[in-house]
């Protein structure tokens, strides 16, 4: 790989621009797509690879090209700089997620409690308006406080976010759904919220709850069958109320 191409790839990643690195096989000639010079077939194949987020070798007019997808990083917006967030944030970073912690309560959202993480102390609805969640964004609310969770979930449901989850018991969640319904969200929309958050692994401690949430996120992202569970599998599924 030439230094120019490596630099172009680094720039695209810094600018959060999804690109595809095409390598002609076996000769190794490379180009970055989309590229107006490259011809329609190659650009269209790159577009498909980006849409499915899947790298693969394709045949284009008799030549083999490896299309390596460099999508923008998956993001996780964690609303509530609480104890569980302190466990969740480093584990999410380990999975390659770009994490943002949102909490207007500065005593919670401190750099000391969350080192090396982007922190927003805006109100959650304003924070999400600024972050503009896309199809590669997960939003998890952890505060248990309707004043903070509700505006975050309201904005999450108005976005194409990949994964929306809310911590809280089954009873808390039913009350939450009733409030969001009053804000005009219909049943199909409300069904997007994973509540109680996380796979039911009988999680008890903060790291275990973080693990269950991240496991569910991976299941949704990868389209695993167990991601299509009914909203509430058991009374204890959602961890602490």
């Amino acid at each position, binding site marked *: *790989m*030439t*230094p120019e191409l*490596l630099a172009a*790839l*680094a720039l695209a*990643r*810094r600018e959060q621009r999804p690109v595809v690195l095409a*390598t002609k*096989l*076996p*000769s*190794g000639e490379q180009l970055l797509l989309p590229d107006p010079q490259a011809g329609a077939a190659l650009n269209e194949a790159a577009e498909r690879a980006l849409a499915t987020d*899947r*790298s*693969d*070798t394709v045949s284009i007019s008799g030549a083999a090209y*490896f299309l*390596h*997808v460099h999508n923008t*990083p998956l993001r996780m917006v964690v609303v509530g700089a609480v104890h569980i967030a302190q466990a969740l944030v480093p584990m999410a*970073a*380990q*999975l*390659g997620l770009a994490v943002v912690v949102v909490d207007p309560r500065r005593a919670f959202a401190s750099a000391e409690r969350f080192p090396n993480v982007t922190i927003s102390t805006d109100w959650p609805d304003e924070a999400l308006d600024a972050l503009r969640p896309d199809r590669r964004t997960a939003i998890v609310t952890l505060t248990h406080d309707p004043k903070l969770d509700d505006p975050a979930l309201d904005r999450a449901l108005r976005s194409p976010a990949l994964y929306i989850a809310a911590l809280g018991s089954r009873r808390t969640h039913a009350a939450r759904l009733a409030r969001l319904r009053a804000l005009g969200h219909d049943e199909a929309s409300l069904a997007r919220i994973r509540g109680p958050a996380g796979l039911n692994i009988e999680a008890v401690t903060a790291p275990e709850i973080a693990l269950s949430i991240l496991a569910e996120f991976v299941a949704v992202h990868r389209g695993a069958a167990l991601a299509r569970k009914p909203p509430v599998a058991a009374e204890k599924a959602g961890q602490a109320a």
Partner: protein
Amino acid sequence: MSEASASAEDVLAVAADWREAGEQVALATVTETWGSSPRPAGSQMAVTASGRMAGSVSGGCIEGAVAEAALQTISSGAPQLLDFGVTNERAWEVGLACGGKVKVFVEKLQ
């Protein structure tokens, strides 16, 4: 690219950092898989002439052979397209215990 190297999975960023630090670096990328290959296309491994390694292209079955090819590519500058599978009949050849097949492209970071 170091701002992206927070994730251990970001092998390209690690390779770029090594290159920038003056190392001779080759990058191996899974370009095609068949059957039950453990790592999907796009998985990468970086190898330096000094013996550093990051990432993986299989569950550990072919990393040794890929590292060897990487050192060849570092010294020759020529890329290679390697083919690994269970079809190798001679026992001393490298294959995948899982029964899958993979193609791995090895290139030098210029």
